[in-house]
């Protein structure tokens, strides 16, 4: 059996990748993708832990819910980005700085 630490490590790495991606990327769509990566890191954790706690199967439900919610979020997100692109002609978040101070 694969030790649980490896899963945690994997998820932590995924999470970090997502986080770093969010901090460094300028394109809003890429950032949305980074968020998805981070959500998936959490999902991996849930599944891995669920294996160690067979008595509590709710974790799987959580994961499925999370995936659904993430899909919805991305849906709304893309819509918003489209909207932004319509009004601002850009999805580069460095240029979306009219609201400040």
């Amino acid at each position, binding site marked *: 059996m694969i030790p649980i630490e490896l899963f945690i490590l994997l998820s932590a790495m995924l999470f970090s990748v997502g*986080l770093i991606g*969010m*901090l460094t990327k*300028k394109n809003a769509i890429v950032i949305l993708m980074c968020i998805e990566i981070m959500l998936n890191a959490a999902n991996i954790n849930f599944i891995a832990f669920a294996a160690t706690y067979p008595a509590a199967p709710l974790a799987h439900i959580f994961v499925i819910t999370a995936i659904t919610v993430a899909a919805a979020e991305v849906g709304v997100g893309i819509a918003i980005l489209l909207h932004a692109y319509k009004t601002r002609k850009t999805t580069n*978040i*460095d240029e*979306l*700085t*009219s*609201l*400040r*101070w």
Partner: protein
Amino acid sequence: MVFGISFMEYAWLIPLFPVIAFVVVGFFGNKFKEGGGAIAIGSAVIAFALSALVAYEFFTGSGDAFAPEPFKWLAFGKYELNFGIYIDSLTCIMMLFASFISLLIFIYSIGYMHGEGKRKRRYYAEIALFLAGMLGLVLSSNYFEMFIFWEIMGVCSYLLIGFWAFRHPEGDEASVKAASAAKKAFLVTRLGDVCFMAGLFVLLWAFTSLDFTVLFDPANMATVDTGVIMLGALLLFGGVIGKSAQFPLQDWLPDAMAGPTTVSALIHAATMVKAGVYLVARSYPLFIQSAEVMLVVALIGGITAFIAATMALNNMNLKRVLAYSTISQLGYMILALGAGGYIIATEMAHGDVEATVGYTAGVFHMMNHAFFKALLFMCAGSVIHAVGTEDMRRMGGLSKKMRITSLTMLIGCLSIAGFPFLSGFWSKDMILEAVMEPSSLGLEGQIFMLLFVLALITAFMTAFYMFRLWFLTFKGKPRDASIHCHGESPKSMTMPLMILSVFAVGSGFLIFLGLNDIITFSVISGDFVVGGHGHTPGHILDAILTNVWTYVSLAVALIGILLAYLIYARGSLDPSRLTASGKSRLYRFLAARYFFPQLYDQISWKLGYSVAKGVDYVDKNMIDGTVNGLANSVVGSSGSLRKMQTGNVRDYLMYMAVGLISAVIVLYVLVTTGGL
């Protein structure tokens, strides 16, 4: 009892009538003729009449001080402050001459202030209150009450000295000077008043009351530490120094000449400055508890008498010379009281029984001085009224145009100079005798010897400067053509002059007509009566006429008169020879009043304004600066913190990430260190 009524019970009405006059004139004076002057005069008449009745009743009575149960004014803790009346012989004399002279001055004012228009209302209201203050003060049954009237007089003098503090008939410069003089008078006397107040504290604390009946009771006095009484007495004397213009607070009085001459007469002759002397006389039972206090009193009196006389020597302002002479004469009175008290104090300690004339001399001189100084001031006022200037250098030869004035003023000058058998002669010689008395007492005796010499020199200088004044004003030729003399003053002014000159001549004889019994002070020490009686008229006459010093002082005075005559009337002596044409250091020193004004200015400037500027700087820059600095730092940090909100969402994400990591670190630190 007169007419079956005990007027002493109603003595509180005496100051009340002038107060009523003050209120009526103050609010409705312009509805009356002469700004309500008649009302003020009427109140003075009533006050004088009542005083006379009360005095008559007192002198025909048992002679014990009359002190009815006072009105409880304010009670706090175990203390009680009362309002009441206290009548003894001193009270009677004081209120008699104060109300009488004030009455004359009020009448004189009708003529003197005639041209003041609407401001007369203010004038009569204020002098009425002034009189009320003086009468209240002499009738007071305790120190607190006395202090209140004392201060009321102070404020009246402030108002009256500053009567021309705006729209002065002589122009703006004079207004400015009057305003400054009024302030100076109030502030300098207030310095004394603060001492007085401290004295009240000490006495109140020691006796839990300020009533004379309590304080002067030997039984109560015995329970209090002598040092405390001494402190209290000295602090009270501080008040006297301020009010009676004694060294070193004498300098307000010459400046106070900025007021109308009637006011000067009122302040100098009848009220205000006499209040200080009265306080010493009144507080004799306290003061004599300590010889040291009396020595201080005598010293201050002697020094004041001397230096004020020197300042008068070369002054050319008619009123100022009189002002200096007032200070000098007040010094005399204080000196006499101090010397007499010193004897009593030392005698009480030794148990000797001997009489002293000091108390009698001081009070007697106060009375005489009231008459002749009122006379002198009113004469001066008459002159000023006629010529419109106070500068003696611009006068001269006025005796032809102003016969009554010049004659009455001559009587005044002779009296103050101590010309034989005029009032000043008797009291001055009694003072000299009183100062001489303790000179046989050891080390302090030498001090009194010195004081005696000072007093003698003062007598010479007094004669000299008074006649210098008289000769410069009335004799010789008019020195300034631009000065036009209106001739003699109206009746309302000359009448009081003539009445007063009678008193200036004759009031001295009262000492042989029973006054010596009235003005006595005695204290029971052990089995003995110290101080008091033993001065029969014959004794006094004998003492004065057989005393060699009487003739010495007389000679000295005559030399003074002669010198003045030679210099200022005959012109056979050129004063510039003595003074190096006014350039000698001494001359300038005297003209600058011993540099006292500069000293006052320096002190008030350094201790007042400079410190104030410093405080203001601290307030604006440091304290308020801190407040504003704090506010500005908030606003400033707001400005910079706000820049964190760049608008770029990646920065926001960064803050979140940094926040996350720092939170973990903080938590780690907390966990490993076990919490804060």
